[in-house]
């Protein structure tokens, strides 16, 4: 019986139509085991009052109560909105800075290898380290930044970088941008390297100035690279959790609360895993929306370039 099954399976695997599935099988198996399987479990817990410290609460079913609670919880929605705003601002700024860096490095021919390594320097920093690093840089009393500003005579205030409403969010955004702009820069630089020279020369012959060349030829060409970078970044923006948690923990007064800090506190500190997982599901939907959006833009940009998507 078993031998027969094995043979049948063997025959299936060798059929030409099956080859792609056989090739994809390892990837699918790993993802199902590491991501999908645990996610189904956490989906189930989001319908329970599950608390870490009371394992028996896993078997109480409370239907949609966790979700109802979230939907009426103003703090959650403020954090939700702030997360969207944070992502939108950070990803766009990273794109702009990454573009600037790529354009600058592309012009320089001497010492580029060193410059490229410097450009990728922040990628060597673990997010948790980035958090500590900027926590100390932005410390208002003994931090490096305020010390520098005061020494240079630019201010006589102790600026509370991590407290003031907009500054706190801005400081976190700075840390996040510092850490992740490299990804954009390197992909956009790759895009610039791949650019054919002829269209640019033709445009110059036609009398286009630098800006026009950039706007109408260079930019459309490297946009697909930008969308790749944005898709990659929106895939793992949740890395920002490590940074925010160390720098401000979501405070003060919830001014820097993002979905991920809220989820972690609800789940681990308050030990309310069921509710935290319900929140996590809402946040996953947000990530999927962002990723899907950039992905469709990427496909559109490829089509614009004439590549077969």
């Amino acid at each position, binding site marked *: 019986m078993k031998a027969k099954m094995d043979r049948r399976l063997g025959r299936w695997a060798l059929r030409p139509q099956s080859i792609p599935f056989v090739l994809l099988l390892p990837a699918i198996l790993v993802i199902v085991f590491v991501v999908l*399987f645990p996610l189904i479990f956490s989906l189930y817990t989001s319908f329970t009052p599950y608390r870490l410290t009371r394992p028996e609460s896993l078997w109480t079913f409370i239907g949609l109560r966790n979700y109802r609670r979230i939907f009426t919880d103003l703090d959650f929605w403020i954090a939700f909105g702030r997360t969207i705003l944070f992502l939108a601002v950070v990803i766009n700024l990273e794109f702009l800075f990454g573009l600037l860096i790529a354009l600058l490095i592309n012009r320089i021919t001497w010492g580029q290898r060193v410059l490229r*390594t410097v450009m990728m*320097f922040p990628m060597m920093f673990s997010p948790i380290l980035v958090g500590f690093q*900027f926590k100390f840089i932005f410390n208002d009393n003994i931090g*490096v930044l305020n010390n520098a500003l005061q020494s240079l005579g630019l201010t006589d205030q102790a600026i509370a970088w991590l407290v003031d409403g907009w500054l706190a969010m801005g400081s976190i955004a700075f840390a996040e941008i*510092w850490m992740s702009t490299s990804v954009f820069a390197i992909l956009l630089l790759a895009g610039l*390297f791949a650019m054919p020279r002829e269209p640019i020369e033709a445009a110059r012959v036609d009398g286009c100035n630098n800006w026009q060349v950039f706007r109408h030829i260079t930019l459309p060409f490297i946009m697909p690279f930008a969308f790749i970078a944005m898709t990659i970044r929106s895939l793992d923006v949740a890395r920002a959790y490590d940074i925010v948690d160390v720098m401000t923990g979501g405070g003060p007064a919830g001014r820097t609360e993002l979905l991920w800090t809220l989820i972690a506190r609800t789940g681990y500190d308050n030990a309310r895993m069921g509710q935290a997982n319900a929140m996590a*599901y809402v946040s*996953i939907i947000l990530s999927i929306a962002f990723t899907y959006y950039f992905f469709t833009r990427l496909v559109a940009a490829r089509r614009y370039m004439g590549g077969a998507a």
Partner: protein
Amino acid sequence: MPKRLNAVVSWVLTFLVMVIIGLPGLWVILSGFRPNREILAKPAVWVPERLSLDNFAAIFGLGDTQVAIPVANYFANSLVIAVTSTVIAIAIGMSGGYAFARFRFRFKNGVFLGLMLSRTVPGIALSLPVFMVWSRIGLIDTQFGLILVYVALNIPFTIWLIDGFFRQIPKELSEAGQVDGCTRWQAFWRIEFPLARSGIASAAIFAFLTSWNEYALASNLTRSTDSKTLPVGLMDFTAQFTIDWAGMCAMAVIIIVPALALTFLVQKHLIAGLTFGGVKG
């Protein structure tokens, strides 16, 4: 003349940008060689009065402090976990990427998007469910447990990049090889793989850096020196009331230097690889 001015401006700008990128990181590295009293001081001590290896000595338990951090274990764990997970992710990614690049099949777009979206699940949401499953099957605090998670983390991006590279290579090349008597398997290794090599290298460096630096999941899935990685080891410098920032910086140097050296060595491939990959779909 304006051209000259242009060059000067772009040099100055480049320099400024590099300073902004480099300074916060250099501050960390420099702090690894300075005592706490000098780093977090007011008024600030701008020119280091004393550079020493004291913080490193303390990590290795050589100073007059009694606390040694098992940094050699962490380093070994990090290396084994990052390298193994990268190699596996690349192997699986090549197989999957090849499938997407060379075959038409049902649900192709659905499978592709599904694999991509698996990466959007935030680590913090994944950490507990994975922990529960891992603890049932005995993968907690093992290198293998973490390797498996990192493979899953790196598969989507790896498949995507490698898919792009294989599409760049004309199908005809491989077909020509097969006409010459190669099997499809041989044609792949002799013709397609060498052409996609720098693309695969760039996927590998991304995967390696992700695994090397990951903290959120590792902090939940590791327990002891059996599996703790370097980023998790950073937390050894925090106690309830204190953070030994100088010690942490010294440890950071130990984490950063190998990654930086590796990046410097392979970055030529990285740019070349990304150039031809991914985009033209």
